[in-house]
């Protein structure tokens, strides 16, 4: 299937599904019908050309499939459906917009576990096949199929929710998808779906639907500004820290877009955690080197973030910025406040950051111990390689 048609189909998938669910309820049945319609389009369109109203075409075909499905299940349902059968809509475009958002809210139903929310979002909103999703998460297709089917059963009967109270969960799910792709450690694989790109695509869609929302803009910016550094993030399977990355290889287009999003959203009101993190990422991405980074500004932002959205990982990052502004002794004192924090106890990053700060303080032997411990605790192969090198390095 050619790329343009595939992109078009994946863009239309959530709108078609949203329309069907709004009209007929029964998410599970509608989802199956839309998958079949997408499959039919992927076969017919490249040969016969894209219909003039692709959205209407898909809704009509999916509705027919839904009718077939119901007819074979129960005559009563088919009669009900006959009543609600309508000609293809390209009716009110604002409706499609609402449908897509509400579909996202449905996929991020609080009754579902995070892996189920992720899988369902990628399938129903992202328009990916079960096999593609399984492949992306290195899980057998049968496992993913069962996970999706269980998720659909769980939310069976739940209509499309209106409320924006699920937006934070949606953003969290999108960020999970992004991170899964960004930190993926598996080897080169042409079939592996680009999860980071997919997360950016979906977040871009949410931003288009909610352009005034600062956290949506912030998340999109954070993804772009992080993804901009992807190429230089590891070399030969070994993690390269920010300070040592080749900044010439950073993606300037992504950085420009991310920075514009941040500067556009910041004046609109109090910044939430995603926007704050994006603002910090923007400072790093615009700096020509670690030395020329405005660490005072970074530190101020981390202090605000640590106060408004307290979290041990933020404190860790704040300690790194503190070292750059006030020296390692003050940073180590800040790190000590995390020693009794159960949320981060046993996490490799506590040891990795302590190793880094002790190195800065000239205590290389103690630094080595912490690097070694961090190397044992991490769950990422490139990170482990980096930490082992730091442990072996004698300055």
């Amino acid at each position, binding site marked *: 299937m050619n790329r343009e048609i595939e992109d078009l189909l994946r863009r239309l998938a959530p709108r078609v599904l949203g329309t069907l669910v709004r009209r007929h309820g029964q998410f599970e049945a509608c989802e199956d019908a839309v998958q079949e319609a997408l499959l039919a389009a992927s076969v017919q369109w490249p040969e016969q050309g894209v219909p003039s109203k692709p959205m209407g075409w898909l809704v009509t075909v999916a509705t027919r499939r839904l009718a077939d499905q119901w007819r074979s299940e129960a005559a009563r349902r088919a009669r009900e459906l006959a009543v609600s059968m309508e000609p293809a809509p390209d009716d009110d475009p604002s409706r499609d917009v609402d449908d897509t958002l509400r579909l996202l809210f449905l996929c991020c139903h609080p009754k579902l576990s*995070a*892996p189920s929310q992720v*899988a369902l979002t990628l399938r129903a909103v992202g328009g990916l096949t079960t096999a593609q999703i399984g492949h992306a998460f290195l899980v*057998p297709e049968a*496992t*993913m199929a*069962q996970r999706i089917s*269980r998720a659909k059963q769980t939310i069976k009967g739940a209509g499309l929710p209106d409320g924006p109270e699920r937006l934070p969960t949606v953003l969290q799910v999108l960020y999970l998808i992004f991170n899964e792709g960004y930190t993926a450690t598996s080897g080169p694989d042409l079939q592996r779906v680009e999860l980071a790109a997919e997360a950016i695509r979906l977040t871009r869609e949410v931003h288009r639907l909610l352009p005034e929302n600062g956290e949506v803009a912030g998340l999109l910016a954070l993804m772009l500004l992080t993804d901009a550094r992807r190429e230089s993030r590891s070399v030969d399977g070994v993690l390269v820290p920010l300070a040592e990355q080749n900044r010439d290889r950073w993606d300037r287009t992504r950085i420009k877009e991310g920075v514009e999003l941040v500067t556009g959203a910041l004046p609109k009101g109090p910044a939430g955690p995603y926007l704050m993190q994006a603002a910090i990422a923007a400072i790093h991405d615009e700096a020509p080197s670690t030395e020329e980074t405005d660490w005072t500004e970074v530190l101020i932002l981390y202090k605000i973030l640590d106060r408004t959205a307290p979290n041990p990982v933020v404190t860790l990052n704040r300690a790194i910025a503190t070292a750059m502004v006030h020296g390692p002794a003050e940073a180590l004192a800040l790190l000590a406040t995390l020693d009794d924090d159960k949320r981060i106890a046993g996490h490799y990053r506590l040891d990795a950051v302590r190793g880094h700060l002790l190195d800065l303080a000239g205590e290389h032997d103690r630094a080595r111990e912490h690097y070694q411990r961090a190397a044992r605790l991490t769950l990422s192969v490139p990170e*482990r390689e980096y930490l082992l090198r730091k442990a072996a390095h004698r300055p």
Partner: protein
Amino acid sequence: MKYLLIMQVNHEVLDALSEDERKLVMEGHGAFMKTVQDSGEFILTQALADPANSTVVTGTGGAPVVSDGPFLEAKEFMGGYYMIDCESKERAIEIAKLIPDAKVKGLSIEIRPVMYSAGADL
């Protein structure tokens, strides 16, 4: 997140089980597998032959040395494992508690996170 649930077993404990108890454990594994399959968290399971059947290849820096018998003469050994993919370590613990071994005094399940996977099905 993928975890290996390693069933650490022990001859003394297994030998002391009555036939009925052994049957309960066996059936329990079937029921357990159905539970994690239905939830979409099951990836793979293998039961291993007794370590009496093991052969060990040991690196020496030169030609590797081959010897019969288990790697370690220990009371506990790995009897088999389940590989699962679930939300969190807390969920992995919850799942491990459902394995019938968790109800037999003296048997343990070790939960280890997976760091890298590859394979035909993935």
